[in-house]
């Protein structure tokens, strides 16, 4: 007896977006099926991993995360180069953490100079991630857009409170924006509509649905992403047909389970593997929910996830 395997009736496709410049362009999106449902459609561009670089040496990282980068953490350019040259990073995500008004609060022009330097010294696509303070990000990201004209950056997070200012600047200097909303499909859609109304081109928008790592709300992110993909691929919801990015490493590596010592919590097991696995598994779940870009930290976690992407693409 012949069995007909039920198939999802897809009506939409995720927009294909090309990032970066010159010979090092990367294309993401373009899938016409649910993540890795290769028996139902195609995923022309496998998900990509961007490696994190911080604008100044991080102070709160566990040793295991610090160790691979210990020799470069004081120099964002060297750090980025190491990610590319040693760990084969396809993209770099520069986290502008020291612009935070509640932290080092470095001024916008100084931040812009750091971003410019990194963008001058690397050839792969560069993501710039602000400190997630609406006003400070507006100031910093605008300066970076201006000074890095022609570098085709990916900038975010762009939120409801600053989408006009950052969106308009991104249009003027031809950068891609990351539309960020707090784990809510309707807000995600609304921000995409607003960016569209502002005339941000369709091939310059990436969705950031916000993430909670495993044990800290991952399932919320998962289900919102799932719904975004269902709406985009089966319900002709054009304003949700964008690739998805997740800035996951910085959320994973700050949770208690990753940071607590083995003496304090012997049952949690080996500290380093714990961090690596938390990161890899969070990333793995996000792949299954439809992520196109994952911002990650630990080379070993990245190795695991890359391998998994390869397996899934060849299944």
């Amino acid at each position, binding site marked *: 007896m012949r069995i007909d395997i039920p198939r999802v009736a897809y009506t939409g496709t995720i927009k294909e977006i090309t990032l970066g410049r010159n010979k090092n362009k990367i294309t993401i999106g373009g899938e016409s099926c649910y993540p890795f449902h290769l028996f139902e459609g195609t995923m022309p561009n496998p998900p990509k991993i961007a490696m994190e670089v911080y604008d100044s040496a991080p102070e709160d990282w566990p040793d295991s995360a610090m160790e691979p980068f210990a020799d470069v953490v004081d120099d964002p350019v060297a750090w980025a180069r190491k990610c590319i040259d040693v760990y084969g990073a396809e993209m770099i995500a520069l986290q502008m953490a020291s612009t935070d008004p509640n932290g080092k609060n470095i001024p916008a022009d100084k931040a812009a100079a750091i971003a410019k330097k990194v963008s001058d010294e690397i050839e792969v696509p560069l993501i710039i991630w602000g400190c997630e303070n609406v006003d400070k990000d507006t100031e910093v990201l*605008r300066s970076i857009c*201006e000074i890095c004209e022609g570098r085709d950056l990916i900038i975010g997070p762009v939120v409801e409170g600053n989408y*006009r*200012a950052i*969106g*308009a*600047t991104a*249009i*003027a*200097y031809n950068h891609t924006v990351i539309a960020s909303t707090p*784990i*809510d*499909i*309707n*807000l995600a859609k*609304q921000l995409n*509509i*607003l960016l569209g*109304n*502002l*005339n941000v*081109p369709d091939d310059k928008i990436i969705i950031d649905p916000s993430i909670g790592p495993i044990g800290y709300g991952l399932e919320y992110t998962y*289900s919102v992403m799932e*719904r975004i993909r*269902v*709406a985009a691929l089966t*319900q002709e919801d054009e304003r949700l047909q964008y690739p998805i990015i997740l800035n996951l490493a910085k959320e994973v590596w700050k949770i208690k389970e990753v940071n607590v010592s083995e003496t304090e919590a012997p049952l949690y097991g080996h500290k380093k593997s714990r961090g690596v696995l938390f990161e890899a598994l969070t990333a793995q779940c996000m792949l299954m929910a439809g992520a196109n870009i994952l911002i990650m930290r630990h080379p070993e976690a990245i190795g695991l996830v890359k391998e998994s992407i390869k397996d899934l693409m060849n299944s």
Partner: protein
Amino acid sequence: MSKIICSAAIQGAHKIVSMAEVKCDEALEKWGPDQNIGFPNTTYYLPVIYAMLGTPVETLGNAREVLNKCKTLLPAIVKDESWLPSLDSALEAGMSTLFAEEILEAIKYLEKPDCYTKTEDPLIDNIWLGAADDVIMRKRGVEFVDGSAPGFAIILGAAPTTEIAVKIAIELQEKNLYVLMCADHDGKTMSEQLIEAGVQIGWSTRLVSFGQSYTAGVFAVGFAVRAAMSFGGIKPGDFDGNLLFCRGGIFAFIITLGAITEEWVANAAGAINWGVPIIADAPAPKLVVPEICDYELITGDISHDQIVQKAIDVRGLKIKISKIDIPMSYGPAFEGERIRKEDLYFECGGGKTLGVELTVSKDMSEVEDGKIEIIGPDIDEVKEGGSLPFGILIEVAGRQMQPDFEPILERQIHHLVNYIQGVMHIGQRSIMWLRIGKAAAEKGFLLKHLGKVIHAKYHQEFSNIVDKVQVTIYTKEKKVRELLESAKNVYVQRDKRVEGMVDETEETFYSCTLCQSFAPSHVCIITPERTGMCGAYNWLDCKASNEINPTGPNQPIAKGECFDTVKGQWKKINDFVSRASGRKVEKVNAYSLMEFPMTACGCFECVATILPMCNGVMVVNRDFMGMTPSGMKFTTLAGLAGGGNQTPGFLGISKHYICSRKFIKAEGGLKRVVWLPKMLKEEISGLIKPICEDIGIPDFLDMIADETVGFTEEEILPFLQEKGHPALAMGALI
């Protein structure tokens, strides 16, 4: 279009185009057709020509071809007394003027490369900046797109005195507008007047000295068309696209100072293509062209102290207020603050004195934005522990304002005032109660600051519907009484309007998907007679919410064909719910508990469910903690009704909906209700009276059992039988 304007525009255009031809031919003779021309540092060639025609002018030869085209565009000069030139002919004349002026300016750059500074700010020996290059255009253009600069003013001519020039410039600057200056009047220019008065000019102060001649006005248009191409994705040569983008997106206007020449009119006619209105201090015939825009395109004879406000009114600029100027902190953190007797400095309303609050909409011309007036003494004239009668009248005006939004704005007074540190506000309308603490009084808080808060917050939160806000506070008994009387009339009218609205007469209902973050498949349908189940949103609120936030959670739905008037089912409502619920809910009956009931999120005020033995329905509100005859408490019932699932027999509703004529109409309406908690009965007793009269049982509430009668169906059934409850005789529910 007025004949005088048209013929002046055409006349002026002819002069300017001929002048350009002469200049161009001279230059051709000198440099030949292959000589490059253009503005500095731009990839948009001569931007107006490039944007409108798609023609890149790179050489003198190209320029000559454009001028030939101008000749064909130019309408004949109006000579014949009887001939009435059309609007189009004047607009075309205006367009040719701008093309010709760009060529004139480009030749100027060629002949005298230093005629303009090519910098952002003036130099010591040259104050004329000339065309904005692409760097300036991008940097400044962003401000227009993101709203930090609401628009720009093009000023032609010069003010009669330096003082007036400074006053106008500062007034525009305060509104964050860019001021682009060109042309002279009697040999004087506004730019020179400002420098004379020691005002710093340049792009950095937003006072831009483009050039001495009126032909430099084309730089302003060149700025706008490039913004449309750069930020609006408008392609070069997309004539209509560019005009429409600028009309809708770039808030520009022209102020003319001094006698209007034919050349100015020709330029104005050019700018009118982009919907740029002209406000003149000299007499000029009024011009309205509905095909282009809904505001007056030419307004003349405006005095110098009115001219900026007039321009803002005409073009409908949105004013941004970032800081609220009061001596106290402000924010949601202070909302729950109480002012106790020991801390009290001053109070009004709350039964102690007369108190009334009223927000009304007025015509644009009747409201002066930012005017805050107090009639009677303020707090500083009152001793500690004192009180005053209090009336606050807020008059608002706006292009999108509707009288229906008045109560919504008025309701904001409560939280807006409560956000002030040291101030407590309770109630609304004529039962309002205001207390001001000693600490606030010490810091110099006055009643007039209430006006400042409301003015600023109305602008910040409701900028889509509010353009102007004026506040008057009365503290004299007689005046407050007068306001109270007129307010009472307004309240009566409003209540009638809401009561009078029925689902049958409104073609549009509203959706609410605010709660989809936790109930993904839930879609609320809000009709005039079925308010949102959370009790927070009625139909008018949704209408206003949509106006304020057009892409937000409240979307209008044309209800379409009615499938069932009793159950309340419409075609377009089904379609919408199906789409918005991700195909999870395909059909909704707005008035039914048993068949395709509306889904619920989790924030409903009450749950309605069936009591099969009594053949009726019970409703329990969230505040009732006890057991109910359904065998379940509110929390358990809520779990069944909520979550975005259609569960026949369980319905999340608002208190208000119980008192609606559409309340579970499919199941027989109010007559089905057999049990309500006592507190809920009391709460709705006023609203439900007319419905009880409608069903012919004025004391129907007394027939409904409550917790004093019993907590089980067995306990309440005898009571219902004794009262002769109508539900017992109705058709079976299941």
